[in-house]
């Protein structure tokens, strides 16, 4: 696959179809991968593809808006490209998406595959211009894996316990904003957390400020988060951020049958309205 990827990248740069390829290269430790930015044909041999390619590179696309860019995208990454296109943050004609079928990526904080990969139908890439197929499919996606099992466990707690659970988790937030910076869909020009006039919540890394920050971010991603899990991977405090996003994803799926990033034809979640939408909360 790596060979095919390098050849395609070389061809794209040679034909001047793109001026830059955003992909993965080996990190100096010889094991992990790191993002790379390639603008010379001769550098395309740096490109790699394997289970260490954890990063969602679509996060970088906004920086190169208006330029022709090629990007390597796994199934989850391509979903965030779909949302960015739906929200008019990128232009389709500027992008050349090299979809790669994925066997799952490693869990950097644990062992084996990342949790998000377990239920992923990794061949289901909603958007691409060129697809690199997996030839040695050694692992089938666990279609029967219950991705919402951890969510159900939290839901089963009584309200106060649930509140305590999240208080305990958010207590350790250090407000480094890595979750925001690594999120391809957190692109507000002025984040609510950075505003000072007015200041919407405490800048201090204390429980009230941390709670407000994390809940605000989760709500801002409602119907948009595509579960690439990058926030949780980046979090140095080990907060299970995916679980709060998954809860919202689950509610939206159950109430409105909507899944973010699944299909480029559909409108953004908050722009959708169906007569059949539940409305029993209107009294």
């Amino acid at each position, binding site marked *: 696959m790596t060979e095919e990827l390098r050849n395609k990248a070389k061809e794209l740069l040679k034909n001047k179809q793109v001026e830059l390829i955003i992909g993965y290269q080996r990190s100096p*430790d010889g094991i992990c991968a790191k993002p*790379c930015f390639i603008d010379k044909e001769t550098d395309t041999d740096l490109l790699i593809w394997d289970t260490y390619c954890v990063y969602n590179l679509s996060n*970088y696309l906004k920086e190169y808006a208006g330029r022709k860019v090629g990007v390597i995208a796994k199934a989850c990454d391509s979903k965030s490209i779909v949302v960015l296109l739906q929200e008019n943050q990128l232009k389709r004609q500027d992008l050349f998406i090299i979809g790669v079928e994925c066997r799952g990526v490693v869990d950097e904080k644990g062992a084996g595959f990342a949790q998000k990969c377990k239920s992923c139908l990794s061949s289901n890439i909603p958007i691409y211009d060129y697809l690199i197929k997996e030839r040695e499919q050694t692992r089938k996606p666990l279609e029967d894996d219950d991705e919402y099992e951890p969510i159900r466990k939290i839901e089963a707690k009584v309200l106060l316990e649930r509140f305590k659970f999240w208080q305990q988790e958010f207590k350790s937030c250090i407000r480094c904003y*890595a979750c925001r*910076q690594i999120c391809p869909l957190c692109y507000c020009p002025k984040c609510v957390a950075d505003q000072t006039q007015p200041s919407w919540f405490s800048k*201090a890394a204390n429980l009230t400020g941390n709670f407000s920050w994390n809940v605000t971010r989760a709500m801002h991603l409602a119907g948009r988060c595509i579960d690439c899990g990058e926030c949780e*991977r980046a979090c*140095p405090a*080990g907060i299970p951020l995916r679980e709060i996003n998954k809860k919202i994803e689950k509610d939206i799926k159950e109430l409105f049958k909507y899944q973010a990033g699944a299909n480029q034809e559909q409108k953004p979640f908050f722009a959708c309205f169906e007569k059949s939408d539940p409305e029993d909360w209107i009294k």
Partner: protein
Amino acid sequence: MTQKIIAKEELYKQLNSLAKDFEIIGPKDLFNKGFFYERLDSAQELYLGEGFTTEPVKKFFLSPSEWLFNCQYNNGKNSLEELSLPDKKRIIIGVRPCEARGLILLDQVFGSQGYKDEFYLNNRRRTIIIGLACAKPDAACFCTSLAGSPVESRGMDVIIFAKGDEEFILEIVTDKGKEIFGALGQVLNETEKESHALEKEKNKELVIPKIKVPESLCSIFEDAYWQEVSRACLDCGICTFLCPTCHCFDLVDEQRKKLRCYDGCAFADFTVEASGVNPRPTKKERYRQRVFHKFEYFKKNFGENLCVGCGRCIRHCPVKIDIREVVTNIPVTENK
């Protein structure tokens, strides 16, 4: 320097008996989250293994959000309400040599050359530091190439070396340390002393990765290199917040409170001026600032690099930016 051998049980017992007068702080194993310094209810919660804490010990001296004073406005008059500084004595155990050296560098900023930061200095005064020598530096460690060592005791009151699972060799460094631990353990005999010294020499060799810091970075301030190396940077605060030597902060008003919160050069709004102009508008300028502060400006002001080689910024960078690689590959041109 007195060297003693002490059973783990005896050390823990002593810590527990000191808990009456001291706040005891040390690393805890939070399993899937990693290792974190926390206040301990009992020494049994301590983790004194080989793993490194995510956050450095810095946060107990330069707090992530320090409440400085209150402002009042009553009957048309402003007033300031000073807060009393905490005076509870503390013992922090498990501090690694690199972190302790980080504190020595912070002392220069907050306690020398005319400015004395009472909040920081008070935290320093009320703390006894029990260091823990590193037995297993990892691939991100590079203290030895920045004038450090995994077994040194600079900045500590006592340093302990794990000897098997049940014993520690304890070296008393200062009088403060002697007061607390002077009566414990058995003094090493000559043979034990020799083998301990040998062991220390051996452990120094364990830190392999290197960094080569150029004499001066001035000549490449405008180089395109900075754009290249900062491309993957996310502008998050992990490297600065987890750094034992980064100390930039922001002053924040919250109602009547004045707070001092961590801030970092990586954040896009760190240098935004009231006019809206940002003198460091892109990642290039921001990342360059981090490197220049550590390896150029601080050296000019205080004669040392502002980096102790603890490896946290490498271990925790979400996009694997390696400061050793960045600094070592700087294309310096020799200006004579």
